[in-house]
């Protein structure tokens, strides 16, 4: 029984993992300076934010929802946290603590609102979060009248700029990795996770089992909001500035990572491990193509092609799994 489950997991994540490895091998041979330690650090830095956003997005998509507001929420959380960090008269550590709290709390509240409004009035989360995308972006711009905030305490920015293991692995990447691990644990080993998957497939079954699906669905949006807030804090710590235009379109990259990772937009199917690999694929592709001197426009076209090819491959994978299960 155990081996069958393991085999299923390999079948599920293996294909996408293989695609990532092939991509890395391809660039290693064709792009000079791709396979260098410094570039590995670049890639890890580049995929951190998208990984964090995409992990939160995975929760929402697993219950067949979507959150278009994460890029804006990230910016709003960042601007609010940045404003708090610059408050006069607070001891530095208190300002940092309060700033982190503000960033996460804003993400949490907005995420909760996204979920609650969708459930309370039975609205598609696509619409609600589209509205929230505008609200949060407007709020981010309004907060400083579109000005960028500079010069944060070094105690705050050190974290985002520190690398370990021979200066290869950024600390912020480890945060993203830990988030992937914790989320994987929650989704596969706990009742909460089990119900998330069940809701994504058959909400009625969960209701009849005596649970209230709306509670769990709102929880996924809240989680997604918190990860957006976290992404904002980490982005601010890494770039050492807070700009209200950060994260424009970030929701689409996050959704792309989730989809490439094999999670179904219809809910109930997918994993955060797949999402992580999806984020890696987008990151490696962008990085490799840039190094090869491919221009921005072509890169964008190729990223789009990869997304479509990934879902087509997933279609065949699902068919294959069905056939082997039936055999």
């Amino acid at each position, binding site marked *: 029984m155990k081996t069958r*489950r393991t085999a299923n997991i390999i079948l599920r994540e293996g294909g996408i993992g293989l695609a990532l490895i092939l991509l890395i091998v391809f660039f290693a041979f064709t792009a000079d300076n791709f396979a260098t330690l410094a570039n590995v650090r670049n890639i890890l830095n580049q995929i951190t934010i998208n990984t964090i956003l995409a992990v939160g997005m995975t929760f929402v998509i697993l219950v067949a929802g979507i959150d278009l507001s994460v890029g804006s929420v990230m910016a709003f959380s960042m601007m609010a946290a940045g404003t708090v960090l610059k408050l006069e008269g607070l001891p530095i550590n208190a300002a940092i603590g309060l700033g982190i709290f503000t960033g996460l709390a804003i993400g949490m509240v907005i995420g909760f609102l996204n979920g609650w409004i969708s459930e309370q009035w039975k609205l598609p989360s696509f619409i609600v979060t589209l509205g929230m995308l505008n609200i949060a972006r407007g709020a981010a711009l309004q907060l400083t009248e579109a000005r960028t905030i500079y010069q944060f305490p070094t105690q705050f920015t050190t974290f985002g700029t520190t690398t370990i293991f021979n200066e290869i692995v950024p600390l912020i990447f480890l945060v993203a990795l830990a988030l992937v691990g914790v989320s994987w644990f929650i989704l596969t*080993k*706990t009742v909460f996770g089990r*119900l998330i998957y*069940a809701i994504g497939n058959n909400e009625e079954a969960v209701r009849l*089992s005596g649970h209230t699906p709306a509670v769990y669905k709102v929880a996924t949006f809240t989680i997604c909001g918190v990860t957006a807030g976290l992404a904002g804090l980490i982005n601010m710590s890494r770039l050492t500035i807070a700009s209200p235009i950060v994260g424009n379109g970030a929701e689409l990259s996050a959704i792309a990572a989730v989809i490439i990772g094999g999670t179904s937009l219809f809910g*109930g199917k997918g994993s955060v491990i797949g999402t992580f690999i999806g984020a890696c694929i987008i990151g490696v592709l962008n990085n490799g193509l840039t190094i090869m001197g491919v221009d921005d426009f072509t890169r964008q076209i190729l990223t789009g092609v990869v997304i479509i090819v990934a879902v087509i491959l997933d279609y065949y994978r699902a068919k294959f799994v069905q056939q082997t299960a039936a055999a």
Partner: protein
Amino acid sequence: MDNQPVLELRGVSKRFGAVQALYRVDFAARPGEVMALVGDNGAGKSTLIKGIAGIYNLDEGEVYFEGQRVHIHGPRDSAALGIEVVYQDLALADNLDVVGNMFLGREHLQSGLLLDETRMEQEAISTLDSLSVTTIRSVRQAVAGLSGGQRQAIAVAKAVMWNSKLVILDEPTAALGVAQTRQVLDLVRRLADRGLAVIIISHNLHDIFEVSDRITVLRLGQKVAEYVPSETTQQEVVHAITAGELNTVPGMAEA
């Protein structure tokens, strides 16, 4: 057969706006017996079982469970009493495996947090074995790949896992072929032989006569007859379903 009913309804009524879905229905389910509930569409069969399951609150009447007056206000209340309902659409999550479905919403935990997969798997296997469900190849396969009969077997097995005393089956054979219907009816019989009280809703009188110990006929929200299959005929039951004598409901137009 004069054993005390597990569940007894006395004079229960339910109204939806202008529709009198149930009117002063008396009904009982006894341990070791299969009670069939028959009636035309709109007779009140589903309303009655949803009332028992706590999905609808009954307007009037009394509910007794093992002789005690009870008030059932939701699926959790009925489950706590030992009432399990197998719904027509099965309420299975296709993406979860057999074990995940059998324990959905009532997962075993270890250290208060982790899903205890090993224990759940063992209990799922032993429950399926005890019901002689032999057609499930692996309890770790997703139910999406299972046949209608297998899915029904899992839904039934899920219902008997919880020390249940009363199992209600809503049209368990409606979507099944001949061989699979056979398997499910055998399974229903085995539930009663274990001492459970079973209520089965079906439109198929042939199945009903084969598996049930008593037949309750509902018509337009009222109970119009109760039969023992060996002492009646299908024609008589059909007559009751279509033309059974009704009491006048105060304030209602002639139906």
